[in-house]
């Protein structure tokens, strides 16, 4: 599926904030992933069309970034950190427990399509080791029991965590009358007006 009309409008708005459309590529891919849970070929083609990149350039760029998926993952992507600080507090054991309890290999998805378990690198919650993220929302100092309860809560829809692809639930929006105006690099520009204050100071 390509972008929905609502997302087309959002995409146009996001593109308008950047001096060059290509800068909107990653935000727009996130938008597409939020819409479908992963990046479909159609959506990537459309995003490429919007920012002036070929399908190959879009996929080549998206493939560099771990968060972009080209195939569906579970509704909940569970990233267990095993990097150094988490390693010291049982991150590996937590990952093992997660796999056993959900009966998947690392990287695998449960048969019901609910959960994908992955080994994550440091997610910046090192004092809360071992930690994990569910669709990039944190849980810290997670015991095996905590983990099982979390899975129950997720199954029961008690966490408020949205499906894979959703990141921030608030979007930036800039009222047209408040916009200072994008500043394209191509235009040879004068110094901005407020820097004139320096000259006034020197003169006085």
């Amino acid at each position, binding site marked *: 599926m390509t972008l929905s009309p609502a997302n087309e409008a959002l995409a146009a708005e996001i593109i308008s*904030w950047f*001096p*060059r459309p*290509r*800068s*909107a590529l*990653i*935000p727009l891919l*996130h938008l597409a992933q939020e819409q479908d849970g992963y990046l479909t070929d159609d959506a990537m083609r459309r995003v490429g069309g919007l*920012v002036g*990149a070929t399908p190959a350039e879009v996929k*080549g*760029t*998206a493939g*560099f*970034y771990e*968060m972009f998926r080209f195939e569906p993952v579970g509704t909940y992507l569970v990233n267990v950190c095993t*990097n*150094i*600080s988490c*390693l*010291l507090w049982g991150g590996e054991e937590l990952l093992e427990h997660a796999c056993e309890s959900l009966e998947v290999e690392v990287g695998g998805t449960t048969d019901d399509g609910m959960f994908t378990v992955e080994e994550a*690198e*440091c997610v*910046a*919650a*090192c*004092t*809360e*080791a071992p930690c994990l993220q569910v*669709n*990039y929302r*944190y849980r*810290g100092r997670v015991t095996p029991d905590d983990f099982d309860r979390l899975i129950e809560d997720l199954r029961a829809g008690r966490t408020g965590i949205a499906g894979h692809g*959703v*990141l*921030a639930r*608030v979007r*930036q*929006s*800039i*009222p047209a009358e*408040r*916009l*200072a*105006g994008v*500043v*394209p*690099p191509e*235009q*040879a*520009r*004068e*110094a*901005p007006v*407020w*820097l004139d*204050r*320096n000259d006034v*100071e020197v003169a006085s």
Partner: protein
Amino acid sequence: MDQQMAVNGYIAHAPGYVHNDGPKLITSRFVHDDSFTLARYEATGGYEGLRAALETTPATVHDEVRAATLLGRGGAGFPAGVKWGFLPPGKHPYYLVVNGDESEPGTYKDRLLMERDPHQLIEGCLIACYALGLQQCFLYVRGEMAVAQERIAAALNEAYEAGYVGRDICGSDFSVDIVMAWGAGAYIVGEETALIESLEGRRGMPRLKPPYFPAAVGLYGQPTIVNNVETLANLPWMMVNGAEAYCRYGSESSPGTRMFAVSGHLRRPGVYEVEHGVTTFQELIYGDNFCQGIRDGHELKMFIPGGGSAPWFFAEHLDLPLEARPVGAAGSMLGSGAIVIMDDTTDAVKAAWRVVKFFARESCGKCTPCREGTTWLEQILRRILDGDGRPSDIDLLLDMGDNISPGPYPVAAHNGQEAVPFPPRQTTICPLGPSAVAPVVSTVRRFRHEYEAKITRRDPIPIEVAVAGASQ
């Protein structure tokens, strides 16, 4: 404090942050559960630094930052005022890119600053833009930090609405847009030229140097200032209180405060705002006001003083102050304010392997010594851990390291061998590859016997079995 009291210094709404005694220049609002709202920000002195800046000239603001010797908090520790001075005159437009791609293992302070006090960061961006004539700001948040993205988006919306961002800020002639961008999972994007590539919609691979500084050639080829989140978060306080007041905290060469994330085998691991340059590792790790020592029944074995990229330190380094120069001379770096404490239960080889594995996974693949070398290091360490190590593997590890980072690698003194000061040399464009060598050289010098024990533990294959196997 709102609603709940801190338990042992921890605050429920800001997990990890420890609210202890001591000056709080950038974390002062963390105690409030609504610290990320404009209402709270304005009620606690918010945007007064911007107003103070607007009442003076841009050059005065720059002078103030220079006078405060505000050191960059991203890892390299370069003075922000000096970096700002690299902008070539007259080559407008200039851009500001905020590096919120915090991913260094052990590091988290920018995330808290973005989640708990986004307006402070926004105000810092505005002050920098005003001082330098930067005409558009891009605030790049790490992809995995959904809450930080949410809080910054909400804060920007509030700030635009209230007239702090956008056209004619606070009714003045100062106008600048701040646009949030966000990544999608790549550690290397924290390198400033890789960040710019990512912001241009490409694979986040570091650019060839020279030019060394984006201040000369940056976003879209224009002069660009790339500053870390924490660096910018210092500006509002500095504008309200002045450089002189700022310099009353910390040491002469490292003024102010700094956030340190101290994790690992501690009684009270946490993120602390600490006086820069004067507090020692000893105080931070063992002090009652800070981490309160190693967990019960155990002793310190080693620690990483400055994030996953830093060579490792040991008990004899505890008296060093949290200051770049002495830490560098002793063979490591203060880096990104991430200290990882490992007690006597820690397997040095395994810990080294895990850090190396990170760099192998995150290598962007642009430079051969890093792409191949980090992978080799990881595989050799893994086979040693799996009991398949070969006696030549230790030398092979060091040789691989030498290909990524030639010459003596920074390392702490040990057994009559002198310290090699920071930084390492590199055969690569960026420091990622050389960073992978740090845990290897640190642990081989110190714990060679642990490597040897794992390698010689292999049961020898009886000669007749080996011969029979060969003849089949």
